[in-house]
């Protein structure tokens, strides 16, 4: 009797163990398969179209004859929007993270943290829509532009999306700085701001960088909001107040009509590879920074 129960238990253990193992392996397998598929489809473009003209071409005319698949305008479009978003989100993010971690009283801190997390829960298309009807006209009016559908509007919108990531990760980094550092500085007669500037910020520098990197990762992959609000003109941007076309928006807008197995279709996958590599590098850098902070 007793031994048969032990036997059942052992089988149960075994099944659970293997099931968990399978689940773990599956996620790796899926990632690998997705990457493989991306590579296979993307590289098909380069059988008939030179990789050099793809990477360095300045014109994106995928349905002309002959088509031109130069991703420079799209790449720079993504960079412009992302850079703009980071320029806005980082100072704001640092400010609000410091306020939440160091200055706000506890009740307010809880409210603020919840609010920031709530911001993360707003679907990007909703933010995009709000941006389209409120932000774009405002940008147009403020800068006297022919249109509000510009990289700047996209940047502001994306800054909102990156903020939750940046704020909550930075707040963690600040909280991880030992209390003794703060008190050590304060005991020397440092004011709160001096303590923050001389002790808190240097001590959490790598955590802050990681937060920024992850914010960038979040922003560069964002699609719907930029599709709606950046104007999608595939030209090389020379300023933030111009319309730009990002890589993500291009894929989303053109995938529907691209003939499966055609060069346009392959080119969109090739853009996917470029995006994948960029976000991969960003994430690796971020996790490297997080790890180096833990040490």
């Amino acid at each position, binding site marked *: 009797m007793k031994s048969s129960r032990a036997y059942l238990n052992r089988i149960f253990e075994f099944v659970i163990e293997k099931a968990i193992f399978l689940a773990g392996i599956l996620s790796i397998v899926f990632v690998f398969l997705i990457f493989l598929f991306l590579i296979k489809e993307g590289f098909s473009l380069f059988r008939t179209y030179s990789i050099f003209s793809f990477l360095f071409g300045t014109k994106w005319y995928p349905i002309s004859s002959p088509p031109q698949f130069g991703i420079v305008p799209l790449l720079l479009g993504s960079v412009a929007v992302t850079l703009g978003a980071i320029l806005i989100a980082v100072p704001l993010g640092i400010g609000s993270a410091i306020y939440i971690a160091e200055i706000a009283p*506890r009740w307010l801190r809880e409210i603020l943290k919840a609010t920031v997390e709530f911001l993360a829960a707003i679907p990007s298309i909703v933010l995009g829509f709000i941006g389209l009807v409120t932000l774009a006209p405002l940008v147009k009016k403020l800068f006297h532009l022919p249109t509000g559908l510009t990289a700047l509007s996209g940047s502001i919108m994306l800054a909102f999306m990156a903020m939750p990531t940046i704020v909550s990760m930075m707040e963690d980094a600040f909280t991880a700085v*030992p209390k*003794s*550092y703060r*008190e*050590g*500085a*304060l*005991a*020397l*007669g*440092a*004011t709160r701001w*001096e303590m923050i500037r*001389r*002790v808190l910020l*240097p*001590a959490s520098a790598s955590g802050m960088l990681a937060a920024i990197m992850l914010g960038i990762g979040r922003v560069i992959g964002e699609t719907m909001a930029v599709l709606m609000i950046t104007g999608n003109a595939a030209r090389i941007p020379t300023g933030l107040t111009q319309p730009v076309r990002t890589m993500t928006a291009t894929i989303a807008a053109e995938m529907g009509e691209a003939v499966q197995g055609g060069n346009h279709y392959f080119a969109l996958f090739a853009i996917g590879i470029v995006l994948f590599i960029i976000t991969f590098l960003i994430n690796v850098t971020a996790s490297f920074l997080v790890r180096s902070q833990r040490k």
Partner: protein
Amino acid sequence: MVDKAKIKIEIRNLSVFYGSLEVLKGVNLDVEEKEILAVIGPANSGKTSLLRTLNRLNERNEGFRMQGEILLDGRNIYKKYSSDDLRRVMGMIFALPVSLPLSIYDNIAYGPRLHGVKKKSELDPIVRQSLEAAFLWEEVKDRLNLPAMKLSGGQQQRLCIARTLAIEPEVILYDEPCSGLDPVSTTKVEEAMRQLKNQYTQILVTNNTKQAARVSDRTAFFLMGELIEIDRTEKIFTAPRDQRTDDYVTGRFG
């Protein structure tokens, strides 16, 4: 000691609360100028709370409240000083040596720089004098640019003392400064304290009654947030008035 010593710090009817918990109960205490006052007592006696109230670090704690008043040279420290001005006058040394994540030199120069001393020609002598006063100069003079974290625990604690001296305080508060140190380092820290006696008023919170006996001029015994007894150190250790003091210093509890 001098009978009519000048009073540096007056503590009047001080009660301190964390939320509903009363950690100090109506404490009256005078600290004389340039004495070393030891504060002893078992865990939860309120010793550390007293120090943190003295240099206003307690204000950072959630739910902190206090009654009564503390006068430094006759001025109420919660009303007549800003918290950072007060902490400049009342330096504090913590139980765990907290060297900032900077070089040895920058750790010492940190305070003076905060208060506007920027020139290297002015900083250099301050750094040297502070390190000498804390008995650390000889050990580190050739590697001032090394990260302070690389120093041993005892060296780091003396670095913290030197760092506090660099801002030229009038009072130094020690919160169990030797609790994490080996006997040799402890001796060196105690030696530094004795050397500083001529210039500074020092308050030493310690769990080590022997250390109190070795270093201090007077000793205050706290129990459950109350000041039980304060007197000349030899008296506390040889003929205390209160039975509970006697029990504690002879090691019968605590």
